[in-house]
């Protein structure tokens, strides 16, 4: 069976209806364990004090903020190439979730920055490019809202998503060039791989709950996207039915 069968709205709703409770449940469990463990049962960092606990929210949300956009990009490409309605609607459904993730990363980062760097906001490249990403999310959602015809909206937003991705990348390099920042580099991804003791890496005490909460955020994202895509499909179906009724 080809994966494209799920691009049929009815089939999509039927399948996701089955898995949605499981994903949602798993997400809840993983979030409670990851955040709970992180919040209650991890030691303080010797330099950052108890503020390290923010990492269990900050890093997962940052991770998802980027990946949600990537998912939208893929969905947009699928819409452009194969014109499966579900993929366009899934992109639409993912945008607000991605935007909230970006906002959470920004807010937790800002709150974290206050004790660490002495300011709420710093024009560090990482942070700055997140801000730009947030603007892209806003523009993308506003464009969806502004257009009445659903297919036109899908076409236009997917082109915006493509063009926006290119410009987001460009911005990332531009911002890097403009200001070499304070933000630490990525070390989480290496943390689980080898056991070492350099301060560079996040030690395992922090890593395990962190990974659990990343998984929780990812599952939450998937559950929300499924749910919201279903909603978009139903809303679209309702609009079509009402229109047909009105015409009769």
């Amino acid at each position: 069976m080809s994966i494209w069968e799920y691009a049929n709205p009815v089939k999509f709703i039927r399948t996701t209806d089955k898995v949605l409770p499981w994903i949602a449940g798993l997400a809840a469990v993983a979030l409670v364990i990851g955040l709970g463990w992180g919040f209650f049962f991890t030691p303080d960092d010797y330099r950052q004090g108890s503020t390290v606990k923010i990492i269990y929210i900050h890093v997962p949300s940052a991770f998802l903020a980027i990946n949600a956009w990537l998912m939208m990009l893929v969905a947009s490409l699928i819409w452009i190439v194969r014109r499966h309605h579900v993929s366009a609607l899934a992109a639409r459904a993912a945008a607000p979730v991605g935007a909230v993730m970006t906002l959470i990363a920004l807010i937790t980062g800002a709150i974290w920055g206050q004790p660490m760097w002495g300011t709420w906001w710093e024009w560090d490249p990482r942070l700055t490019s997140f801000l730009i990403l947030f603007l892209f999310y806003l523009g993308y959602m506003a464009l969806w809202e502004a257009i009445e015809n659903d297919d036109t909206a899908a076409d236009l937003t997917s082109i915006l998503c493509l063009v926006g991705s290119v410009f987001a990348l460009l911005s990332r390099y531009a911002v890097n060039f403009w200001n070499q920042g304070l933000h630490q580099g990525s070390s989480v991804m290496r943390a689980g791989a080898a056991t070492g003791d350099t301060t560079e890496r996040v030690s395992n005490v922090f890593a395990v709950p962190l990974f659990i909460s990343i998984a929780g955020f990812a599952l939450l994202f998937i559950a929300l996207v499924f749910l919201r895509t279903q909603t978009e499909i139903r809303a679209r179906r309702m609009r079509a039915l009402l229109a047909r009724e009105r015409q009769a």
Partner: protein
Amino acid sequence: MIALLIRDLRLAVRAGGGFGLGLAFFLIVVVLVPFAVGPQTQLLAAISPGVLWIGALLACLLSLDRIFALDWEDGSLDLLATAPLPMEGVVSVKALAHWLTTGLPLVLVAPLLGVLLNLPVQGYGWLVVSLAIGTPALSVIGTFGAALTVGLKRGGLLMSLLVLPLYVPTLIFGAEVARRGADGLAVKTALLMEAGISFGVIALLPFASAAVLRINIR
């Protein structure tokens, strides 16, 4: 009159988010400034009250041309002119609707954007106060400019040209309040001046706008 206010608010909300977009523009202007002047925190803190004021002013300005332009294009303005509403009332309601959809949201969100520009802590209160007093004047003055240029093609830019000098006094005193507030200095004189200008403008300018609009329609 209330029907007109409700209609304008409803149109602002329906027509692609009248609220959200003014805000978004404000946000973006504030965000672009550091890219242009560089990321030094010190420098940004020094100019932040001014940048926030300029951003609010431009966000107001951008949505001005819609105050009358749409009603003009589709003929509603002619019809309103023959309706039993005093023209002064119409322009005041238009200005109020503009402030509610643009100025008020800007006032509310300005402190958040202050964070991005490292506004000193003691500055937030005065920033909000100065914007709250100043933005209604911006809307009323803007309505005057919009009334002057309604029906002209490319009216948008011409209007900016006419309105911006009129904005100068409000901007000077408003930004002065915000700046002194941020520096921890006394703000009383500037605040009184700003408030005086605002009240004067709100009380008197609608008469001029109404006169101008009557002339433009005929």
